[in-house]
């Protein structure tokens, strides 16, 4: 879902950068207010893990591959969508500048789709689903699927505004492929939450109860 530079006019990338910067500032405020000695290692491990797993393209059928986005995972584990903005921004900066995965002028758009939309949809849908089902893993899996799917639709709309995709075929293709990729995202998110809570059980309070943003 990393939009490369040629997919978008520079001026549109600039607009998305300005909007993304507002969320980046809020994410830095979150970091200053919420990060503790015990949360920093989790943020660091999630950053490293999401960087690595985003390089892992799994086959999803129809000649297409997909990888984890991770916004929902971070937001659920750290109890805030701004945590997802923080981690995804960091990962996308490294990917764009050093590895050419995602553009530089389009980095704001990528932060908006994967970090902001992924984080906020993942976090809010998890909160609602967890209240209704009481199941951490089922709620996390569905929330991660939704985060991936809706981020992809937002990306398709951006591509339409950029003149790169026609609206309906773009939404259909992005929606179909990411509905499948989202299943992988959901399964890995639930599995990763299980493993990380085994290693750091103190985060289970964040995952099961807290709703502070």
């Amino acid at each position, binding site marked *: 879902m990393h939009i490369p*530079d040629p997919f978008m006019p520079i001026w549109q990338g600039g607009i998305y950068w300005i909007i993304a910067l507002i969320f980046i500032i809020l994410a830095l405020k979150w970091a200053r207010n919420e990060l503790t000695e015990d949360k920093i*290692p989790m943020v660091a491990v999630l950053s490293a893990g999401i960087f690595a797993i985003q390089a892992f393209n799994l086959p999803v059928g129809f000649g297409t591959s997909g990888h984890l986005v991770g916004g929902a995972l971070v937001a659920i584990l750290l109890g805030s969508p701004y945590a997802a903005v923080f981690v995804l921004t960091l990962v996308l900066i490294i990917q764009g500048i050093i590895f050419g995965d995602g553009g530089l002028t389009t980095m704001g758009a990528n932060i908006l789709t994967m970090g902001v939309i992924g984080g906020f949809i993942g976090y809010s849908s998890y909160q609602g689903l967890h209240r209704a089902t009481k199941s951490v893993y089922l709620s996390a899996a569905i929330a991660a699927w939704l985060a991936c799917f809706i981020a992809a639709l937002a990306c398709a709309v951006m591509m339409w505004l950029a003149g790169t995709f026609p609206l309906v075929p773009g939404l259909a293709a992005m929606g179909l492929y990411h509905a499948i990729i989202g299943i992988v995202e959901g399964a890995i998110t639930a599995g990763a939450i299980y493993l990380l809570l085994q290693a750091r059980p103190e985060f289970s309070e964040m995952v099961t109860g807290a709703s502070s943003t």
Partner: protein
Amino acid sequence: MKNQQFIIIGLVFAILIGIVAVVVASGDPDGLESSALVVQGQKMLFGDTPEDAEIHEEEEGRFSYESPFPDYTLGGEGGTAGEAAVIALGTIIALILALAIGKMALAKKS
């Protein structure tokens, strides 16, 4: 699990994911690239990606940038080991950067 132990185990696990990715990851285009091929008429929505399919990219009025390790490679050299090393490098940078910014945020708070 103590913080330092958690960081080391987490980093090793992340690097292992990256190495496995280099060896077994799918070479098919990702969701966005596949969608581009579909809307450009080079791929059917439900069909496989033809081997000669290529995304036509607009160049006029678009930014262009050559990264040091394009597509997580050493630029055609180094083979699989080179790619694994490049992904491991990125994983370590992500971890160190997050730790550094986290520590800075903590220092500002106190």
